[in-house]
C-alpha cells in the first residue's frame, strides 16, 4: 500500500510552520491528508463503512489524540495503525483529531433490536450483581463521551465488541484501565446488548 507521500509532505510542511491558526488552505490540505491517509478505512468524513473500523466523526478530540499518540508509540497495538502513525508528527495528529472531532457523525446501525432494552439498562445502571459500573457515568447519558472518555453513540457494533474482547483479554491496555475490568465482568450477552444500545444512540 502506497501513501501519497508528496501531498502529505506538503501538508506537513504547512502544518509544521508553527502557526496556531490554520488558514483555509491549510485546513483544506489537512482534510486532503486525512482523506488520503485515513479515508480508505475510516471514510472521508470519518464515518467508516466497514464495521471493523471505528467511526471517528464527532469523536472526542482529547480521546482521539490520545489514541493516535498511543498507536504511534505502540501503547495501543495495531499493525494497521502503527505504520500510518509513524509517518505523522504529534502536531499532525492533533490536527487530525481536531478534523475528525468536527465531522458530523452518521447514525449507527442496530443489528438486534431485541437486545436494546437490556443494553439500555446496563448502559444507564450497570450491574451491581457483577460490579459492572454504568456506562453513562463516563460516556455520558447521550453516549457523546467527555474529553478523554470516547463518544460511543452510533459506533459500529462489531468494532465495539472487538474492543470489549481486547480489553477483557488484556490486549488493549492503553489509557485508564477502567475498561479492562468492565469488559472482563460483562457477559457475552451484556456486551452485545450494550454495543447494540450504543449503536442505537444518535
Amino acid at each position: 500500500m502506497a501513501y501519497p507521500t508528496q501531498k502529505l509532505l506538503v501538508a506537513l510542511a504547512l502544518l509544521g510552520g508553527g502557526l496556531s491558526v490554520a488558514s483555509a488552505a491549510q485546513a483544506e490540505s489537512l482534510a486532503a491528508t486525512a482523506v488520503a491517509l485515513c479515508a480508505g478505512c475510516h471514510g472521508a468524513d470519518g464515518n467508516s463503512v466497514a464495521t471493523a473500523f471505528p467511526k471517528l466523526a464527532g469523536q472526542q478530540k482529547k480521546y482521539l489524540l490520545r489514541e493516535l499518540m498511543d498507536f504511534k508509540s505502540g501503547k495501543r497495538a495495531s499493525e494497521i495503525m502503527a505504520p500510518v502513525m509513524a509517518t505523522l508528527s504529534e502536531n499532525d495528529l492533533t490536527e487530525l483529531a481536531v478534523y475528525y472531532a468536527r465531522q458530523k457523525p452518521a447514525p449507527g446501525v442496530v443489528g438486534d433490536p431485541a437486545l436494546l432494552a437490556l443494553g439500555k439498562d446496563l448502559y444507564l445502571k450497570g450491574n451491581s450483581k457483577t460490579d459492572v459500573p454504568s456506562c453513562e457515568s463516563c460516556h455520558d447519558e447521550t453516549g457523546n463521551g467527555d474529553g478523554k472518555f470516547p463518544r460511543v453513540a452510533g459506533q459500529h457494533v462489531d468494532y465495539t465488541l472487538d474492543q470489549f474482547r481486547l480489553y477483557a483479554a488484556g490486549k488493549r491496555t492503553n489509557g485508564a484501565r477502567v475498561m479492562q475490568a468492565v469488559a472482563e465482568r460483562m457477559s457475552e450477552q451484556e456486551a452485545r446488548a450494550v454495543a447494540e444500545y450504543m449503536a442505537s444512540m444518535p
Partner: protein
Amino acid sequence: MKLKPTLIAVVLSALAAHPASAEFQRQPRVSGIETYGYKWNPSDQDMNKALAYKANAKKGRATYKICKGCHQADGSGLADASYPQLAGQHASVIIKQMMDIRAGRRDNPRMYPFSGEWIVSAEEIADIAAYLNQLPPPAGNGKGDGANLALGKHLYDQDCASCHGKNGEGDAKKFYPMVAHQHFAYLKRETRESRDQGRRNTNPDMVKVLKNYSDADVAAVSDYLSRLTLPKK
C-alpha cells in the same frame, strides 16, 4: 486485493502479542489483623501524600465520574450492600480505605481495579474525598427491620459511641468512619467481617469489642446505626 476488513482485523488482533490478561487487576495482599504484631493504620506514602495535598472538591466532582457508575451520582451507593454510602463521609476515612484497598490491606478484589494509580492519583483521591465529604448524607439509606433497636442502642452506647460518636459521626482526625446514614446491609456485613477478622484492616479495638457479639447483636447494632442521623451541615 479484496479482503474482508473484518477478517483482517480479527487476524491482526489475534496476532498482537501482549501481556496476558489483567495481572494488574489482581489485588496484592499484605499482612493484616490476622498477623501477630499487626499495627493498625500503618504509615503509607500514598496516604500521606493524599492527606497532605490541598484537596479541591470541584476537581473531585469531575474525577468522581469514574466512581459514580457504581457509587451513584449522589454518593449514596446501593442499599443491598453492593456499594457503600459515601456522601458526607470524612475525607480522611475515604482516603484511608482507598489506600488500604490499593495496598492490599483491605481485601476488595472487585473495587481494586478502580483504585490503582493508573486510574486515580493520590491527589485525585484526595479531591474525590473532599467532594464526597461535602455532599449531604442521604436520609433514604437502607434500614434494618427495626425489631431490636433497644438492644442496638444499648450496645452502641456501651461499646461504640466512645469512638464513633454519640450520633455516629465518627472522627475525621482519627480515621474513624461516620456510621450514621450508612446502609444497614453494609454495616451488618462489615461489622461481622470486622469481628471475624475478614476485614483485615480493622482496628484491633473493634475486634476486642465485637468478639463477644452474636450475629443477632451485630444485626441489632447495625440497624440502630443505620437510623442515626447527623444535623445538616
